[in-house]
């Protein structure tokens, strides 16, 4: 800590709405909500300069729990809606929140192309390796041998590797955090927001109802033993041998982010209306 001077400043409480979460007690998403609001306080932009966009799922309820502008959209389409918002209102800080089912399965294609486009968004995925809201179906990150009533004997399908895919598809910032480390997660989210371009933050967020064994994650995760890199080849080598329990920033690249050139779009609304007239 460098500065212990007293001052008036935004706090996490400024970013929380009066709506109370309906998650199961013990859910990791409570901590992630707390980390997001802390990170926004660190960034120091007031709530009306921030937009939070989500899809469908337990974690996609987050926009309602913040005092920022929010959009609780269609399943898997949060990134599409957020991209539209950011290019229309580049002055806003835009966060996208969701889960592994929403982001990697239903929204998998949007995930790939959002990484590739590199619009200045921060995508926060709360990964609990299960569809919790719909009662425990396996998701793309569910272990192939996870036995459950809905998938007897497991799916036998290999898992999706979000960090590998994000890096390969062109995300400009890639990191992993753990819900049980709220201050570390807040700091990582703040870094992701500050980094230009598409920032992807995967957060291991235990589902205490359908995956109670994930309570063990807190004894399994550890800070990554290496510093972040801006070399995608090195990052790829590291992440391909990763066991999924290293937390921290993996990659912070230098790709220029996608920006519309408004100077070359002189058309007024009236001109556009004329153009689309039937």
């Amino acid at each position, binding site marked *: 800590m460098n500065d212990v001077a007293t*001052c008036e400043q935004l706090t996490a409480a400024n970013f929380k709405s009066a709506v109370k979460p309906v998650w*199961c007690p013990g859910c990791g998403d409570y901590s992630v909500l707390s980390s997001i609001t802390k990170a926004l306080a660190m960034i120091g932009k007031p709530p009306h300069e921030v937009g939070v966009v989500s899809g469908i799922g337990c974690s996609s309820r987050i926009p309602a729990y913040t005092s920022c502008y929010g959009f609780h959209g269609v399943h898997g389409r949060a990134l599409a809606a957020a991209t539209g918002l950011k290019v229309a209102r580049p002055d806003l800080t835009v966060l996208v929140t969701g889960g592994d089912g929403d982001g990697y399965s239903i929204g998998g294609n949007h995930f790939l192309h959002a990484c590739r486009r590199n619009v200045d968004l921060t995508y926060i995925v709360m990964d609990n390796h299960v569809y919790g809201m719909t009662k425990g179906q396996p998701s793309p990150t569910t272990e192939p041998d996870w036995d459950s009533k809905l998938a007897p004997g497991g799916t036998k399908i290999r898992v999706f590797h979000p960090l590998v895919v994000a890096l390969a598809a062109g995300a400009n910032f890639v990191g992993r955090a753990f819900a049980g480390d709220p201050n570390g997660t807040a700091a990582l989210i703040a870094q992701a927001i500050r980094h230009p371009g598409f920032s992807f933050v995967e957060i291991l967020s235990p589902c205490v109802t359908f995956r109670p064994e994930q309570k063990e994650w807190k004894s399994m995760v550890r800070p990554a033993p290496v510093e972040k890199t801006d070399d995608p080849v090195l990052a790829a080598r590291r992440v391909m041998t990763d066991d999924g329990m290293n937390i921290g920033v993996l990659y912070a690249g230098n790709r220029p982010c996608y920006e519309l050139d408004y100077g070359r779009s002189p058309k007024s609304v009236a001109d556009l209306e004329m153009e689309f007239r039937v």
Partner: protein
Amino acid sequence: MKLNAPKTIEEFMAQAYAMEVEAAQRYSDLADAMDTHNNREVAELFRKMAVIEGKHGTEIMQHMGWKTPPANAVAPSWEGFEAAESVPIDEVHYLMRPWHALQLALAAEQRAERFFAELAKSTTDESVRKAALELQEEEREHVELVRAWMAKVPQPEKDWAEDPDPPRYDQ
């Protein structure tokens, strides 16, 4: 566990303040969660704990003569990723009884006592050491208060976690 002891009394008290604020916020979040799940008794208990931890934070501010909270203060992690006095979010159950909630509070106060004891040993600054010992003593008193509270609360029934309409039907 190795600690990076703060170098000045201001830095130390800012950390101690952040610990109290984070503990209060966690209790408040847990109270909200219990309210949502109609566990009013435990919600009320967590709410009381949030008020108590909030008061401790206010006392630190008054002691230091701070008019506004210290900027950028972060509670140090201890025995895991979180600050000593914060109840881990995953250790609650929607059907838990007040006795369980007090067990969590007791464990949090005991962690805080150990934290300040360790910090008093680690620091090289005399004023920090003295303040850490004072806070350790305060946490020890809180441990006793929670124990006394527990003595007045009935132990949970054996079937406290049985739910005739559980969220998981394979249980």
